[in-house]
């Protein structure tokens, strides 16, 4: 098992490496010259060339990539903006802030949004899904199924603005989404994230409802579940011990994927609610052709996705002894 995880880990490192190359190349395909951004008001070919030199854009692409990798692992003192300890993604072209500290700075926002949302949608989604599976065929089940079908077809870019319009602008029931540090003001933190959580959870919860319901129903038809019932175990016991354990696998898989990609930047959600998290940072990085930032966010996002893939694999082992012991 450990060897397996170690192999997965190595694989993830290789993928990250390739990803950084792709992003690097992608950036050089971008139709804009980042130096123009820094060149400012009094731009002329000489100062542009100078900025190219300062940014290292006059070096060949492989060379630039080499420097990037070196800085990433060993840090660098070559930056005019100051020293850059490892992991060094350099300084943003646009804000002149250290990319790594910017990422760390924005991370709490995305983490708050994602984890808060995840707690709600996991509890609500799995809860309703299991109730529906338990009461399969009943009116409740039918209502839950229909509602989750419709809600899961909603998009954040519709539900978000709608929630804003109705709950914030029309009725003033809620505050407009904004981020406050939990440590500085927990109430404001909660207040500002409430609507994003609700919207994010509504859509995700309905997907988890559907998933939990169908995988519970599938599991309930498993032979070993029937065996457990044949042993005289109560329906509840069978439901929560036997069927539940089996239906965890698809749920954990999807949850890992969702959490990984959300933590790498819940782009549309953050954009819809104007929360300056990693996703928003990514959009900014793209629109400003901010290579160091873009690379940073990309690699960070991919790391999250891969990390959670590995965590999911580890969870499999936890859930399923067949995986653990093979």
């Amino acid at each position: 098992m450990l060897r397996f995880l170690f192999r997965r880990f190595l694989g993830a490192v290789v993928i990250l490496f390739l990803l950084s190359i792709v992003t690097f190349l992608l950036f050089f395909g971008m139709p804009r010259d980042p130096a123009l951004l820094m060149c400012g008001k009094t731009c002329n070919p000489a100062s542009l060339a100078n900025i190219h030199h300062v940014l290292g854009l006059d070096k060949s692409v492989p060379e630039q990539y080499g420097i990037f990798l070196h800085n990433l692992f060993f840090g660098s003192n070559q930056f005019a903006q100051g020293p850059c300890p490892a992991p060094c993604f350099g300084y943003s072209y646009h804000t002149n802030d250290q990319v790594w500290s910017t990422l760390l700075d924005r991370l709490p926002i995305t983490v708050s949004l994602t984890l808060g949302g995840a707690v709600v949608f996991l509890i609500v989604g799995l809860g309703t899904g299991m109730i529906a599976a338990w009461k399969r065929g009943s009116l409740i089940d039918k209502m839950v199924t229909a509602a989750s079908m419709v809600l899961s077809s909603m998009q954040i870019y519709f539900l978000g603005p709608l929630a804003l319009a109705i709950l914030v602008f029309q009725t003033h029931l809620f505050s407009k989404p904004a981020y406050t540090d939990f440590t500085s003001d927990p109430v404001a933190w909660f207040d500002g994230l409430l609507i994003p959580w609700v919207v994010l959870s509504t859509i995700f919860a309905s997907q988890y409802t559907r998933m939990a319901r169908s995988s519970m129903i599938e599991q309930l038809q498993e032979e070993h579940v029937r065996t457990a019932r044949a042993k005289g175990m109560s329906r509840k016991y069978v439901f929560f011990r036997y069927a539940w354990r089996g239906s965890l696998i698809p749920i954990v898989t999807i949850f890992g994927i969702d959490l990984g990609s959300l933590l790498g930047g819940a782009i549309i959600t953050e954009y819809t609610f104007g929360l300056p998290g990693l996703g928003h940072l990514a959009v900014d990085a793209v629109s400003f052709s901010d290579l160091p930032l873009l690379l940073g966010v990309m690699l960070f996002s991919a790391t999250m996705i891969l990390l959670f893939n590995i965590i999911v694999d580890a969870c499999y082992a936890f859930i399923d002894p067949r995986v653990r012991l093979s």
Partner: protein
Amino acid sequence: MWIRFKRDRTGVISAFIVLIFFAIAAAAPLIAKAYGKNPYTVYADERPELFDSAGVPIQPNGGISGEFWFGLEPGNGYDVFTKLIYGIRTSLMISIAVTLAVVITGILLGVTAGYVGGKTDYSIGRVIDFLLAFPSQLFFIASMPVVVSLFVSPTDETPTYVRVVALIVVQWVLGWMSLARILRGTTLALREREFIEAAKVSGASPWRIIRREILPNVVTPLLVQSTYLLPNFVTIEAGLSFLGVGIVEPTPDWGQMFSKASTELVLQNDITYMFFPGVSMIIFVVAFNLLGDSVRDAFDPKSAR
């Protein structure tokens, strides 16, 4: 199969709704002509009496009237009805193209990987792993300008079709993996089956086996997956346009309408507007997903409902 599908009332109704959407998309110019408007007329300048100075329709409910059935768009005052049907047209065209591209790629790579196996399978598998690790949304936004720039020099006007092609390419590149994986699995299973063995023994060429024996057998998962893929691509396309990297004004597009709907101008003054793209998209996606479920059930009646 067909009989079972026909008996599924939900499925039939869903299919009917989906067909209506396709019909609207196909006939959008005709409908607009009959209705007497187009989605490009700037009514805020043509009929300034209907708007305030910020371009918000003065009449309630976003200016819905006998003349403008779905009202007028805040801002430039485009006719919402024609904009919506043209927008559906744009979105569906793009999504259908992506779905086709993905299906073809999925078949090519998935079936090849599954059938040939060995190194080919391994390398395709690694490519799939690699692409799946991509932060896809992020990649979409990051690569849209690049892909657009591949087609035009930065100083020339970007024709709409270039954006459309770019949208298709970008979604296609990161969209084919799941289908390919499923088809690979199906092919792998088929490869071990007797009739394939028999065909092999009888000396049929691999191409013939794939064409005659394997392809007909992957139609089922293919059809089921495609009905799930298409609405997914519709929402992705809309999401990109929402983020401003997809289709832009004045080309009508579903997602771009959401982008408009999320401006504070609309949020604060005219929420009626956002219901038209919103509700129509929900209906479309729900109908398509229900259709997908029905297609799946029709092929595979065992699955739990």
